[in-house]
């Protein structure tokens, strides 16, 4: 085995024993697991918000209407999911799960009694509905404006009954507001609503009272229902026909479309395409972490060898170039191992994704050779570029502390692609993105960033040439600095001094007269 590879092998084996390496390997699967289960856990762990309503409207019509409407929305939502269920078994299971969670005084149960419908069997077995029931159902569904379910889901995060539950208090005495405030203080309820005597006229005397001023979801959810109901009433008072009313209520929307990549025809944008456009952000971020971690490893490692006085022993056996190359290769291999482990865990991870996440086509994105190939290739390019800088910095410093001041400009440079990340993803082939792409230190990150575009082929060719040329220059400079710096002790040199080394002919400073090859 050549001496370079011996050095590389040692670096690799040693790094495998460090915490940084295993943290690097494990961080990503943990992140994925969190992404899959964590959000659901967080959503599940949110307490059901209990609220009371003090309704002064005639016959409490508004609060009743809101309950009914929320119930309809929930049923609609249930129907939506139930009709999408694979088979009878799953359907029954779903329905029973929900139903068993409901108490007798739950709006759905009340609705069951009120509307005289067997909601349970109705939901469970949609085909067996009677004509009248079907009519009722379609009426409900029609009442739900298109996209409302999604909207509702956004406001309430799934079924409203999972999140909000109205509490009835029978005897609130002469001063109900004061009584409710006490309940609020005792944390019996999360909030209470006050509805004025004539909601149709104005919302002047209405109020939402809660001690939590940051979580406004409940207020928005209730208000959105109340608004719809009040608006319905107002429209009705105008004696408009149903058509006119619907027309007034209708929104003006734009369908999101783009050109098909193959046929060039205009088509609707699919959900997974939207996500695909954003995917580079995740890749750039991971790329950044990987490049940064590996380059940092190289720096610490070089300084460790220097401060441990190992350099001279090593140089009595290997040449400085063999040492430098060995270190860069060994740590590069460590980084590549981490990156490949991420790719593999991502590929495994998507197999376990289900439901909505799976529909978004993550599998397709993650296993897309464009992204995967770019990721691995740009990791190598980015690592090598920064490795050249950090190995040179490491060679002239005796301690990490000394390295810090020299590292600062590198850090500042490294942060730019992170800042630009979101802008570039929004405009992957724009002027700013193009401009940044051709600054060699940013090229790997920017090309990854623009992968959603994707950039035209000539840009891939141009940046590949740019990267190769930059690498050659960077390593030529790094080698010059390394040869002098690695045996230096004492104060690290100033940047101006390092530049002088680069200009000086070989042999002028403490350098080797001739190159050696393995």
């Amino acid at each position, binding site marked *: *085995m050549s*001496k370079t590879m*011996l*050095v590389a092998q*040692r670096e690799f084996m*040693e790094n495998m*024993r*460090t915490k940084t390496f295993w943290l690097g390997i494990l961080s990503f699967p943990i992140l994925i697991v969190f992404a899959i289960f964590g959000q659901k856990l967080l959503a599940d762990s949110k307490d059901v918000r209990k609220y009371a309503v003090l309704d002064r409207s005639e016959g409490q019509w508004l609060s009743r209407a809101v309950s009914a409407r929320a119930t309809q929305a929930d049923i609609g939502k249930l129907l939506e999911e139930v009709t999408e269920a694979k088979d009878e078994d799953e359907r029954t299971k779903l329905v029973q799960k929900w139903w068993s969670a409901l108490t007798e005084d739950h709006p759905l149960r009340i609705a069951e009694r009120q509307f005289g419908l067997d909601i349970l069997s109705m939901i469970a077995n949609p085909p067996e509905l009677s004509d009248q029931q079907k009519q009722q159902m379609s009426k409900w569904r029609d009442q739900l404006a298109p996209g409302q379910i999604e909207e509702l889901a956004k406001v309430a995060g799934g079924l409203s009954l999972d999140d909000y539950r109205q509490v009835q208090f029978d005897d609130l005495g002469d001063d109900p507001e004061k009584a409710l405030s006490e309940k609020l203080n005792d944390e019996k309820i999360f909030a209470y609503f006050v509805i004025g005597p004539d909601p149709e006229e104005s919302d002047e005397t209405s109020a939402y009272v809660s001690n939590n001023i940051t979580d406004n979801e409940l207020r928005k959810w209730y208000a959105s229902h109340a608004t719809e109901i009040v608006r319905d009433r107002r429209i009705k008072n105008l004696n408009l026909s149903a058509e006119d009313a619907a027309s007034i209520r209708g929104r003006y929307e734009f369908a999101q479309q783009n050109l098909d990549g193959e046929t060039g025809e205009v088509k609707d944008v699919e959900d997974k395409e939207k996500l695909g456009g954003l995917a580079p952000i995740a890749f750039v971020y991971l790329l950044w972490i990987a490049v940064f971690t590996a380059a940092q490893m190289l720096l610490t490692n070089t300084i*460790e*060898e220097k401060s*441990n*006085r*190992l350099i*001279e*022993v*090593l*140089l*009595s*056996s*290997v*040449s400085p170039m063999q040492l430098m190359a060995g270190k860069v290769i060994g740590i590069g291999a460590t980084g590549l191992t981490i990156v490949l482990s991420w790719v593999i865990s991502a590929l495994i991870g998507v197999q376990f994704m289900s439901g909505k996440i799976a529909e978004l086509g993550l599998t397709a994105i993650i296993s897309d050779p464009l992204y995967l190939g770019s990721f691995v290739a740009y990791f190598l390019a980015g690592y090598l570029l920064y490795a050249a800088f950090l190995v040179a910095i490491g060679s002239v410093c005796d301690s990490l502390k000394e390295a810090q001041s020299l590292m600062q400009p590198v850090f500042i440079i490294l942060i730019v692609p992170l800042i630009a990340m979101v802008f570039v993803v929004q405009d992957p082939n724009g002027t700013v993105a193009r401009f940044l792409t051709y600054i060699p230190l940013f090229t790997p990150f920017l090309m990854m960033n623009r992968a959603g575009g994707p950039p035209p082929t000539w840009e891939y060719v141009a940046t590949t040439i740019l990267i190769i040329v930059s690498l050659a220059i960077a390593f030529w400079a790094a080698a010059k600095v390394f040869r002098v710096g690695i*045996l230096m002790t004492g104060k690290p040199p100033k940047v101006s001094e390092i530049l002088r080394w680069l200009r000086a002919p070989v*042999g*002028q*400073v*403490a350098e*080797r*007269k*001739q190159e*050696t090859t393995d």
Partner: protein
Amino acid sequence: MEHALTLSHVTKRFGSFTAVDDLSLNIPTGSIYGFIGPNGAGKTTTIRMVMSIFYPDAGEITVLGNSQPEAVKDRLGYLPEEKGLYKTMRLGEIVAYFGKLKGMNSGEAKRKAIDLLERYGLGEWIDKKCQALSKGMGQKVQLLGTLIHDPELVILDEPFSGLDPVNMELMRDTILSMKKEGRTVIFSTHVMKQAEEICDYIFMIHKSKKVLDGTLAEVKSTHERGIQVDYDGDGAVFHELQSQGLVDRVNDAGKTCEMFPTDGTDPQQILKKLVERISIRRFDLRDPSLHEIFVRAVGGEVVDA
């Protein structure tokens, strides 16, 4: 005579500073060669050139008969003055690693490392990490890393510094046994006593130039003899002798003192003066100590040793 190392008119400059100036040196195979000289004189630069860490700006270096020192790097062993170990590596691994870097194959290096560690009393430490070692043990491990590939020429820079008497003896025995095996040993030291004890040849460099080179006896014979006294009492008397013009150099170590009579001074006269003031255990006239030669060579300057 066959030479393990030959330097002829070697010069090395760093910018405007000349670190080694026109140095010529012949080191016979199988000898122990002591490099002495004040700090910054050029010892380490010379050694680094032999190890092809640096390349000379002018002159020729022939190592083990090869004028390309690079080509025989694997047959040399070098223990630098500043020695270190990878803290997280295990003893067995690191010694074997140094062997592999010198071209040994993996299995052979591993076997030899274990064998050496056991022989040097570090058997139970083979699987321990280097960070657990004391300084002396660390130095032993570094020495083993230097010797694992049975180098023909070994260069030891300050091998004795920081060693306790037991390990110092071990180091000395190691050096002597290498000589017996026909290897050549170059070692640098600041402790003149050690150099006197084991070196066949002494080489001294000062201000980038060679000032002494030859066998110990040769080096000493070129200098006048001095008086050595072992004594108890107040050493102020020596300086009085000096101010009276009887002796011109005094190296008083507290219990022993070396001095050099001025021309025409009778040693008997000095002895007479001394017995009045201090109790003398030994008084003799002999070759000057290496210490004295060293100090004279650097021109009596204060040496930062």
